């Protein structure tokens, strides 16, 4: 069995009195697309920063591509690419200039630099915009450039922190295709996201993170089955009706949650026809996610 691409054991990270990562254990096998799913503030971005040694753990062990962090982090960074959540492109430079600078930073040999930049431009579909200044690019193009920048040195591990946050659906689809292509090419992908659909579509394995820990892990289908069952009944109606349905559910010990204007009752398949009238639909990862991370917004 090959060694995992990423391994974290008992990792703790505190900021003052706030514990951002609280005894995290995580193993990402090589060659998979691994989704780190969690609400905002669950500790996903802090975990990502620790993998590049831009944040240092207070306790625990971290290894990336077989290198021990933070001691050998530079070596690990040589072989991985990072796509940050916040746009940190040089707005004054052109796409080609940015990619050339990063090809140097990632030690792409001088003879291969031009070809690497060209390849990244093609990959991100930015060839026609190669000499455009970043300031003049649309949000979607900038995000693609961020991805291209992280892939300039053909890394074997890519960290994507909320890769499609704030993008319109067309751009999101396009990025998903790109990410899926990476995985098919044998690159290990660790992607943090709070978009359920993104994790459901792309990730082979999903780990749900809450309050700095992994609370569940499995394929999206396994998680849905384990935490939300097969079917869900959604009861619609005025607030009084929903309150009543919620009370019935609580009395019978049915697992339920508010889902926008409706009350969703999980595991409808096991209610033996006792379920209240409503719309039946298959359980999804969102049901499992809310069951795991709670309904309250912090």
């Amino acid at each position, binding site marked *: 069995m090959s060694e995992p691409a990423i391994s974290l054991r008992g990792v703790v990270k505190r*900021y003052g009195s706030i514990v951002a990562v609280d005894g995290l254990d995580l193993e990402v096998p090589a060659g998979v697309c691994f989704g780190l799913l969690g609400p905002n503030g669950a500790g996903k971005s802090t975990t990502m*920063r620790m993998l*590049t*040694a*831009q*944040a*240092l753990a207070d306790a625990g062990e971290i290894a990336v591509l077989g290198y021990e962090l933070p001691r050998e982090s*530079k*070596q690990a*960074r*040589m072989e991985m690419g*990072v796509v*940050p959540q*916040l*746009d*940190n*492109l*040089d*707005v*004054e*430079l052109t796409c080609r*200039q940015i990619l*050339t*600078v*990063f090809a*140097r*930073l*990632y*030690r792409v040999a001088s003879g291969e630099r031009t070809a690497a930049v060209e390849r990244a431009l093609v990959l991100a579909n930015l060839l026609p915009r190669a000499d455009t200044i970043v300031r003049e690019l649309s949000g979607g193009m900038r995000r693609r450039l961020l991805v291209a*920048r992280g892939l300039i040195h053909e890394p074997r591990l890519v960290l994507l922190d909320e890769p499609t946050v704030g993008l319109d659906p067309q751009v999101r689809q396009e990025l998903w295709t790109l990410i899926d292509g990476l995985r098919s090419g044998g690159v290990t992908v660790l992607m943090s996201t709070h978009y359920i659909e993104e994790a459901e579509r792309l990730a082979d394995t999903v780990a749900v993170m809450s309050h700095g820990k992994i609370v569940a892990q499995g394929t999206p289908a396994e998680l849905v089955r384990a935490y939300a069952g097969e079917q869900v009944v959604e009861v619609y109606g005025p607030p009084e009706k929903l309150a009543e349905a919620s009370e019935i559910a609580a009395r019978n010990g049915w697992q339920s949650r508010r889902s926008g204007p409706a009350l969703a009752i999980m595991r409808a398949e096991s209610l033996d026809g006792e379920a209240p009238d409503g719309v039946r639909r298959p359980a999804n990862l969102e049901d499992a996610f809310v069951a795991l991370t709670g309904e309250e917004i912090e």
Partner: protein
Amino acid sequence: MSATTVGVSAEPAKRVGRLEPAALAGVMSRDVVIFGRYWKATTFSSVMQPTIYLLAFGLGFGTLLKTIGHVKTIEYIGTGTVATAVLFSSAFPGMFNTFIRWQFQRTYDAILAAPVDVEELITAEVLWISLRAGVYGVVPLLVAMLFGLEPNAGMLLVPLIGFVTGFGFAAFGVLIAAVAKTIDNFNYVTSAVLTPMFLVAGTFFPISTLPDGVRQVAQVNPLYHCVQLVRDASLGGLGAADLGHAAVLLAFALLMWRLAISQLGKRLID
């Protein structure tokens, strides 16, 4: 017969060291590209500034004073302006570029996710600024020549003096950016530190005319040592005292470099 196995000892782990030239070159290549966009404005201001000083002080004072100390006014002001040019072209970029790239553009976050360490990032940035300061520090001498300063072989040392001084002040700027909470706080440093520093350094008038206390303070001002060194080199008066001036500039550069790395490092890596 003793077996002589020429030991290809266990393959050394592929180690990447500190301050790798490739990392420094990578960070500086970015500065070069950006400079390619702004060199006209930078060059314009670096020529205009000494020209204005020389016109104002040289023509203004020059009609009143033929010499300052025992040096011709044009020589005194011309060499003094070198130091101000070096100070301004290193301390300000050190402060503003660092703060903007770190806090507003988050460029440093992107660079540190690549195989570049904090030490390499800051060293490369400071190195680039000080190389530029060394080159632009020569401009006042060229302008002063138009006003009658005589060329001297010792002037060839000026870029080197400018580089070492600029290194210290660029690192000083990085240090200020690291500890300043907001970019507005730079105003305190500019008015309370840099302005007196640039005036009380023997740039436009000798510190020997100043009261004792102020003169002693002036002597710990690195810019004072830069001025002395530039003046001695440019006017053909290098002597043993200049080794002391050079030592102060080197010590200042070394101290600021290490402080900049440790202070900004603390803030770049949580």
